[in-house]
């Protein structure tokens, strides 16, 4: 195994990206605040469908599985997360979350930097596993391998239609054909590296579903399938320290109800199954899960949905998390809004900094490009 320097107890992070701009106000609802009702005439959650977390906030009924984590004090809610001058562009905003560069265009992803810290010599090509077809910018650093798993793990690998005795031979040829050679050029070399890393990753990752058995039934949703894949790789002790997955699209301009509910039902039911699975396999203690979205949405609804906003909410969940509220929801008073949006009052790099410092035991400053206050949601 390449996972020589890691043990089962090394801290692991799972990032679940809520792509599209999750509506903060309908996720953590200030149900006593009259401004909530005033602004959410069309898409407000009725009182009888809100589960109270405390005297101030509630979650919509369609996020019910999160309630137990809250009651068990395993869920940290990070309020007002975002950054100054938040662009209302999904892609620019997501890029900023990924690269920690709010001003210029960044080239390195923050998690790519983490992976480089963990495995500077590139000894393990599955230090980072991303469940999905594209490579999120947060994982990109030149020379740092990322295993992107587009479909089920069982089918991960090159040329799945060639099986049997031929397979080993053909993949051997494949490896030979991808050997880097002097003078073939930068692009061909990059393809060599990518091809050979993925080939190595295949042998490693494929064992994960074979070794897996569980009594936990995951729901039938894309995000639950991704989380199940993550559980399988995590249980196989392959040295993976960073897992990435996403669910979309939270871009609820129109048809927010029932759209937002369907999205969160899938996410929270998936997480519930995932955490049960982790506990059943005694693999829960070294995992924390971060959920974030590129921005929140406009305070006032538009008649059927909500438009792009600024300040949002992030969650960190896990056995070692100190549950509770961190920071506070930005004011909803009209005079405090910025272009109709909540003004972020917690820099997103604060959230990363706590995770890096307290969980992964890394110096956050060079990874998030600066020093930020650390909300104390981890011991």
């Amino acid at each position, binding site marked *: 195994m390449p996972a020589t320097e890691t043990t089962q107890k090394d801290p692991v992070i799972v990032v679940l990206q809520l792509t*599209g701009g999750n509506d903060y106000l309908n996720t953590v609802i200030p149900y006593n605040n009259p401004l909530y009702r005033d602004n959410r005439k069309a898409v407000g959650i009725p009182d009888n469908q809100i589960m109270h977390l405390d005297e101030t906030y509630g979650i919509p009924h369609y996020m019910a599985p999160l309630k137990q984590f809250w009651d068990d004090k395993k869920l940290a809610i990070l309020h007002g997360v975002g950054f100054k001058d938040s662009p209302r*562009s*999904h*892609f*620019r905003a997501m890029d900023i979350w990924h690269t920690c560069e709010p001003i210029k*265009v960044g080239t390195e992803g923050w998690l790519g930097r983490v992976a480089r810290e963990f495995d500077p010599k590139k000894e393990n090509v599955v230090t980072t596993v*991303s469940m*999905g*077809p*594209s*490579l999120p910018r947060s994982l990109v650093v030149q020379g740092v*391998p*990322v*295993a*992107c*798993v*587009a479909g089920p793990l069982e089918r*991960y*690998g*090159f*040329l*799945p*239609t*060639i099986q049997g005795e*031929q397979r080993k*031979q*053909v993949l051997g*040829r*494949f490896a*030979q*054909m*991808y*050997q880097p*050679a002097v003078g*073939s050029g*930068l*692009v*061909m070399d*990059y*393809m*060599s590296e*990518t*091809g050979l*890393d*993925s080939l190595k*990753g295949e042998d490693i990752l494929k064992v994960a579903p074979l070794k897996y058995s569980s009594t936990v039934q995951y729901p039938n949703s894309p995000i639950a399938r991704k989380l199940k894949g993550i559980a399988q790789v995590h249980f196989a002790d392959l040295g993976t320290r960073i897992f990435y997955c996403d669910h979309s*699209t939270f*871009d609820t*301009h*129109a*048809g927010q109800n029932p759209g937002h509910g369907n999205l969160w039902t899938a996410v929270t039911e998936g997480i519930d199954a995932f955490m049960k699975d982790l506990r059943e396999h005694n693999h829960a203690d070294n995992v924390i899960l971060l959920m974030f979205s590129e921005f929140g949405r406009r305070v006032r609804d538009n*008649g*059927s*949905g909500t438009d792009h906003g600024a300040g949002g909410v992030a969650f960190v969940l896990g056995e070692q998390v100190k549950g509770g509220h961190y920071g506070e929801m930005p004011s909803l008073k009209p005079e405090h809004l910025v272009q109709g949006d909540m003004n972020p009052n917690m820099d997103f790099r604060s959230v990363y900094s706590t995770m890096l410092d307290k969980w992964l035991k890394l110096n956050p400053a060079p990874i998030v490009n600066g020093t930020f206050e650390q909300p104390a949601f981890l011991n």
Partner: protein
Amino acid sequence: MAYQDDIALMSHLMRRAGFGAGRDEIEARVAKGYEATVEELLHPETQPPVDAYTLLRYQPASLLPGGQPPMGNLNWMFYLVNTKRPLEEKTALFWHHVFATGNSKVDNYDQLLEQINIFREKGLGNYRDLLLEMARNPTMIFWLDNQQNHGTAVNENWGRELLELFSLGAGNYTETDVRECSRAFTGWTFETKIPRAPYGRFPWKFEYRPEDHDDGEKTFLGHKGKLNGEDIINIIVQQPACARFICRHLYNFFVADEPQVPAWPIDPPRDPKAIDALAGVFKDSNFDMTATLRVLFNSDFFKNARFQHMKSPAEVVVSTLRLVGGHELPRPGYGELAMNTAYMGQDLLNPPSVEGWHTGKEWINSGSLMARVNFCAEKIGDPSLPGVRAIINRLKAKGNLSPDQLVDGCLDLLGPMVIRDDTKQELAAQAKAWGQISWDSDTNAQLADQRTSQMLQLIVATREYQFA
């Protein structure tokens, strides 16, 4: 030998001006001649259009208002796979890369498909007219918030992208120009869209509201006056930077990979003379795309740029489906088929941002490379598909094949491809391990089919196959 060169050149033309072609078609086009083929490609109206009724019959939901993925992708994929007007469709893809507009915000595939249809109809015409058409296109207006660009409150989104991404490129205007340009487009909006539920949507329609237009004096790129949006576009197209910017896009898309667009103000073009030549004809022809592309396809710099372009996912998927055949009818499952470009990183009608896709090397990561290799290998490895059958039959007609003949034959019919010597040695070693193949008995023929399709799979798995 000369004939083989003609085949290779025609294959190059068809890969770039279209989505590749099988050997039968290449031979027919060689018989017709290179320049005549270029003319045919430049005049799509001489070829029959795609039969939209077939699409509707199999996939009625592909045209329902507010369809969700993969319905929009499915619709376009049907056109891409079936078109007899390859350059028309390829040019539509080109403009989609430039005027990148996405469902993530527009949330209305009908409107996006309508925009693609404008690219089909006008993409080979006059660039100035197309730019004006985009300025009046409700999908574009909504995508870049110009409906919120009011005489009393300027929104710069469209004004900025018009200059930065659609015409001049960064560094060729000032912030004041952005402001003045945006003022000129105040009041350019569209009829209010109706929320989807429960009655569906009305089609969007351009609307000019004089009462919301800022009719004051403006100064834009040195021109003064009560400029309106159309004046702005007339000024833009006269800028030398505009011709160079659009022609560099053409070069990057049709000829050879350039750095990413944000680097253009810093990095010089790969072939400055080629850009000069294209920009010259673009300007002299009064921004005529057909005239510009005619020069491009007939130029030496184009003819010599073989395999200098990383295939985009759309090129990978469409060229493979057209080569293997059997995917003409939009049967159930076609939507999933169409999503394959997204699995490789190019969700058609849904680019990651208004900047469009990063191309060239940036298409490749571990997941996308695997998706490319596996998609192509799965299709080319299926001898029941008519296009694969046609390749096997051409090889079979040669009789028994030695290992080297198998490799050469497959490389020829998949291109002709040019590959590195060490790559070829590996293919030859594999073929040698199998020994001579022949179709002289049923048992041998079955094995020969299998070996041939495995060799084809191995070839489409090479790095070289990712280039066009």
